[in-house]
């Protein structure tokens, strides 16, 4: 990751904007090409090459996009066709809310834990890392089911319903799904940031700061944190990818009215395109901005 950043420092500003645009175009092309893939696969199963149908389907999908106000979709709940806009925004917003809340919870808890663990001794740290490594192998489905079961159990024992475990109708539930979605990313990010912080600890400047008599808390919080957070950010993209799959399962198991459930009712190229796009856009912008932010900060420092 480091050499990538250094290489980018040499680019003038315009090139970076161009790079953003090319990346964006490649991503969109990839999604459109993937959207019609099932046609090729159905052809493969039946033993023929359906290249022409594939191109045809891509063309149809792109044409279907044009009068954007007229796209109609089957609504999974209402059981009838409905116009796409503005109905879809309710789905998107709900999914993104859960996704980003969970990400935020995961980042905050994992960083807090990391900082606390960094203040402990080496022995304990290694043990914590080991436990985290094995905790990562817990499947997300198990976490969701255990959460639901424990809510039911708690309800049976005390008569208090902590949270609804499924959505019926139009209401929204937040904290239980967010918690379920946040558990695994927290563990992953915790281990990742532990590794990064430990890598950072071997750097010379930490030793210097120690020698100058700064306390351990101060060094970890002020000096190492700033440098380690950049690596953690770049690695969090993979965590995000993994969270998207989890979000999908979560929406199914909690019956949440989100964008993934929307796709389930609309398994065709246009539906796929719209769904992928609805969370691709905010995430792509967020990550591009983050990359730009961190890289430019580093650049400024290098100049000064």
């Amino acid at each position, binding site marked *: 990751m480091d050499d990538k950043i250094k290489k980018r420092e040499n680019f003038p500003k315009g090139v970076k904007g161009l790079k953003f645009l090319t*990346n964006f175009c*490649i991503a969109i092309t990839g999604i459109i090409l*993937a959207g019609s*893939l099932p046609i090729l696969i159905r052809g493969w199963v039946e033993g023929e090459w359906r290249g022409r149908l594939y191109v045809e389907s891509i063309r149809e999908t792109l044409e279907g996009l044009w009068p954007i106000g007229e796209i109609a979709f089957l609504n999974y709940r209402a059981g009838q066709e409905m116009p796409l806009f503005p109905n879809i925004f309710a789905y998107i917003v709900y999914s993104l809310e859960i996704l980003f809340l969970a990400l935020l919870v995961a980042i905050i808890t994992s960083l807090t834990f990391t900082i606390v663990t960094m203040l402990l001794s080496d022995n304990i740290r290694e043990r914590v890392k080991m436990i985290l490594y094995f905790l990562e192998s817990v499947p997300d489905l198990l976490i969701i089911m255990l959460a639901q079961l424990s809510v039911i159990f708690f309800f049976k024992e005390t008569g208090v319903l902590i949270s609804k475990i499924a959505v019926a109708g139009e209401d929204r539930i937040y904290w239980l799904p967010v918690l379920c979605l946040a558990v695994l990313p927290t563990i992953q990010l915790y281990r990742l940031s532990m590794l990064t912080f430990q890598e950072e600890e071997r750097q010379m400047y930490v030793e210097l700061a120690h020698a100058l008599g700064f306390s351990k808390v101060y060094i970890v919080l002020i000096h190492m944190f700033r440098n380690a957070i950049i690596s953690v950010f770049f690695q969090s993209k993979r965590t995000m990818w993994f969270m998207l799959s989890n979000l*999908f399962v979560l929406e199914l198991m909690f019956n949440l009215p989100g964008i993934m459930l929307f796709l389930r009712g609309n398994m065709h190229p246009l539906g796929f395109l719209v*769904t992928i796009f609805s969370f691709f856009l905010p995430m792509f912008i967020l990550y591009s901005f983050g990359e730009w932010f961190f890289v430019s900060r580093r650049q400024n420092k290098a100049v000064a």
Partner: protein
Amino acid sequence: MWRQPYFIFGFFILSFFLAGSFVYEWVWGDVPAQTHYLMEDGRAVEAAPISPNWQHPLGTDQYGYDLLGKLMLGAKYTILAALAIAAVRMAIAVPIGYLFGTYFEKQRKWMSSFADSMHYIPLTLFAAYVLTPLLWMPENGFSSTLSERISVQVIIMALLTVPIVSVLVANEAALLRDKEYILAAKTLGAGRFRIIRKHLYPQMREKIAVLYGQQVMETFIILAHLGLLDLFLGGTKVSYDPMFGDPPMSISYEWAGLFGSSFRYLQSAPWLPLAPVVCIGLAIFSVSLMMEGYLRSKNPKIKKIRRQPQEDPVVEWNREQLREKMVRLKNENQSK
């Protein structure tokens, strides 16, 4: 490798499921025991699904089939499929990665931004979307055989993340390629293929092994997710009877199918969906144990990264000097 307790333990769990699966089929046949209801003193006390008891350690499903038997029978499908998917993926992605890492340096950037865009498509959703035409039984039955479908599914699932894995390999290879010893080999006239074979591959063997383990773990998760979507390994049997349609069923007893078809019983019979998921979790756990054991056998230092403060008279003397100076500085400052 075989001396590492982690590796042996993980290997033991995984081979227990695999060997158990084949032995079970050999001894008891490929249909698990069926009990419709439990009798006690001539009265029926419990009908299927029967909760766990001594006769059925994991209870039975809604049709009275023994769940432990089903799990054992299904183990081989799930585990072998996951291992095969990851193996096919690595077999395709590693050579591509090396090619991009050594021959096509310019194109590597394009490739990595393409792979980067894949990070925005949730894998489960993509897999489900692409596999539906293959696995969902059409109205007039499947036109392909079970083994055909399984192999096609394995190849498709392997291909899904080939770009991402090969970019990982390519970036790693590109990092190594800039090392001095590679430059030395080049100067001595080594071709690119020789460099890959003799220098890059041996250097990256451990990383590739770890990558393989990660792919296996990921595949288990994706298979479980697909099970939730009623897309089972080797095809989903769908009943198109408008009146008495059975729920979608798995053709083999593989774990994802066991979980997916029993998910709605979570409240009334929690052992039904929990047992398969716990098994999947155990399989993933054993793979991560094996990975850890493998890594430890390769570099035994991993446990002791602790740095010993070196006793060096010069350093000690310097430190002493510095301390004295700082004390002097502090005193001067205070006296001002």
